[in-house]
């Protein structure tokens, strides 16, 4: 059973703490924090901000899922960033080159994206499993290298096309696009939202209802215990890393197939790092990740509105960093408080006599 207090209190505390801290920063810079927060809230109701926030949240949700799969196995796939950009550029090139009937075209692009995301995660996975190289370092290096690879592939000498001043891949034909869900005045929601929701359910189902998910979690909790139960930690690490990379491959797809149709040099970066933060905020739970993604997208979008009233938009970045750090600290504090309360409860139940081992007393 979910303990609502331990699940919901920490994020709430963290958000309050982040607001307090950014208020201090705002006061130092001579701005009125209340004004700033009011502007951030009010911008949701202007034009299409609400829908574009949700659209951004879809992207963050996918990145969060990718990171969460790694976290379940105690693998820190910091490489979501590199994997999604590599997958995006490869999928955009292949998608622009392919000529297929409508649905098939989309499916083919998605398959290419998943495969190339997993491929980019393969090297760190293999190095981790067979050479003991920390995946943190290798994936970070690959994150940097992906800049070079994208620039190289989008170069007109390879697969790029020059549109005005901007280099990008070939445009994907209409058969390879995912239609959006029109919401009238408010804008158009990415059709990918359906796939994202399905992935979230699939992730939950895999972890909680399949043997593989159980083995993954067990192995993440304790490698030795899982090994005693016949679960190979190597295999699980490899699997977690590859699945994580595969999901990461989808991160750029909502925008690629729903809005941009090309992958350009100027495409937004940093979704992968956001994914890590979002997964932490949501404690690797699919619903929690959705909440984290929405919060993050809201903060990102509101940064723009802050500029308009003359407040540096970086305050949103500071809030995001503070939230991540304070949410993990808050979870720890609540955990300790729960533990202490549990011990007191057990102590009281003993009516003066020492608690027995079964009740949590000392041996």
């Amino acid at each position, binding site marked *: 059973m979910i303990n609502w207090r331990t699940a919901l209190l920490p994020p709430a505390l963290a958000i309050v703490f982040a607001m307090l801290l950014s208020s201090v*920063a705002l006061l130092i*810079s001579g701005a009125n924090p209340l004004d700033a927060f009011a502007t951030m809230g009010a911008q949701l109701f202007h034009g299409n901000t609400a829908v574009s926030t949700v659209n951004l949240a879809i992207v963050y949700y996918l990145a969060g899922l990718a990171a969460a799969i790694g976290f379940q196995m105690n693998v*820190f796939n*910091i490489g979501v960033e590199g994997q999604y950009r590599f997958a995006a550029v490869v999928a955009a090139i292949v998608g622009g080159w392919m000529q297929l009937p409508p649905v098939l075209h989309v499916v083919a692009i998605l398959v290419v994206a998943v495969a190339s995301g997993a491929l980019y995660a393969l*090297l760190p996975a293999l*190095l981790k499993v067979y*050479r*003991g*190289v*920390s995946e*943190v*370092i*290798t994936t*970070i*290096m*690959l*994150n*940097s*290298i992906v*800049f*070079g*690879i994208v*620039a*190289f592939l989008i*170069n007109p000498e390879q697969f790029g096309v020059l549109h005005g001043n901007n280099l990008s891949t070939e445009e994907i034909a209409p058969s390879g696009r995912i239609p959006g869900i029109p919401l009238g005045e408010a804008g158009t929601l990415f059709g990918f939202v359906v796939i994202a929701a399905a992935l979230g359910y699939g992730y939950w189902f895999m972890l909680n209802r399949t043997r593989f998910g159980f083995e993954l979690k067990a192995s993440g909790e304790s490698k030795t215990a899982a090994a005693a139960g016949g679960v190979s930690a190597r295999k699980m690490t490899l699997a977690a890393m590859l699945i994580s990379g595969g999901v990461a491959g989808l991160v750029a797809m909502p925008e690629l197939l729903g809005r941009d149709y090309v992958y350009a040099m100027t495409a937004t970066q940093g979704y992968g*790092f956001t994914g*890590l*933060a979002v997964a*932490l905020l949501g404690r690797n739970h699919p619903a929690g990740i959705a909440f984290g993604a929405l919060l993050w997208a809201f903060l990102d979008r509101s940064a723009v509105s802050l500029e308009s009233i003359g407040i*540096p938009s*970086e*305050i949103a*970045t*500071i809030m*995001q*960093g*503070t939230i*991540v*750090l304070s949410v*993990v*600290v808050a979870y*720890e*504090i609540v955990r300790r408080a729960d533990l202490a309360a549990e011990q007191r409860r057990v102590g009281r139940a003993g009516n003066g006599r020492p608690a027995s081992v079964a009740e949590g007393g000392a041996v």
Partner: protein
Amino acid sequence: MEKPDPTATTSARRLPGWARGALWAVVAIGVLSTASYLTDMPILTSSDTSQTALRLGLPILLAAIGGLWAERAGVMNIGLEGMMILGTWGSAWGAYYGGVWVGLAAGILFGLLGGLLHAVAVVTFNVNHIVSGVAINLLGLGVAKYLANLVFEPISGNPRESPPVEKFDTYSATFLSDWLGALEDEQRVVLSDVAGLLRGLVTHVSPLAMIALLLVPASYFVLWRTRFGLRLRSCGESPVAAESLGVNVYLHKYIAVAASGGFAGMGGASLVLLEGGADYLENQVNGRGYIGLAAMIFGNYRPSGLLGGAALFGYADGLQLSGGGAAVLALCYGAVLLLAVIVVLQLVRRHWWAAAGGVAGAAVLYWIYWTNDELPSDLIPYTPHFVTIIVLAVAAQRLRVPKAIGQQYRRGEDT
């Protein structure tokens, strides 16, 4: 984990550490001079290259020293990157108002604050080390951008850049430098190569570079030759055992992580305050904190090793910057030569699989060298990153990692 190998009777094993380091340095110079002679690329060993390498290697060296202090106390420090970013802002700010030394101090102070934050999260609140590190990288970037917007924008008119700041003066050992320069120009085999590499290291050297290089033996002395260092390292090996002997584990971890942040901040300062470096510039750190961590891991968590790692990455970076694609290809050639030496060593030790792997790697590298005249210019700037991955893949299994690294520790709890 490497098993003790009874057949390991080669001399390299029994040599003391400094002698092995010297041996590797000789091998490296030999390989480089042979490669530069055979590929006709004098830039491989020119004084320009080694001078650029020293400048580019410094931030990495300092970050690596920072990593050493934290990891030896059992704390993983992915947050080095964020602490370096804080250091770049701090040093530009300090240098603008108070000159270089104030800038250096401010850079160290800002990095130290980042380190303290990491210590609070990791030591006091038992937050997962990598999670906290990632958060600090986010925060460091956000805070630096915010402060730059607030403080630098009114002065420089650009929120991404600081106004020009004072740089460190540089000093040259004039006689030595001239003599080595003359020797380099004579273009004699080996001799000129050594002269070129050395000349870069004694020409236009800043006090910061000297301090950073001195920090390597200083760190060794403090961590391995003092009581405080022994206690600090014991926190990284077994905090519970350390606690049972009366060591204040929290205090030592706090000091170690704060010092780590200070060194990282100094690394950030070295990006700003050195001649030829930019002033504060957004994204100028660009992953150097991570590369520093990789250099430290490559150096097997030892001061002398991390010096080698930083030199390697600095050299790769300096070479691609001053020589471009052709020079990197020549470096590939040099790597083939180095692999040949390693393969011979492995054959002598009867490590057949390692030798086969070495031959395969050499074949691939030689193929790259043979079939390409010019490497794609988009990928050249990432030479140090490629080198990092390759080197870690080759070296990682011999590592002796501090035992309790990344583990959560609470006083009085036995884990």
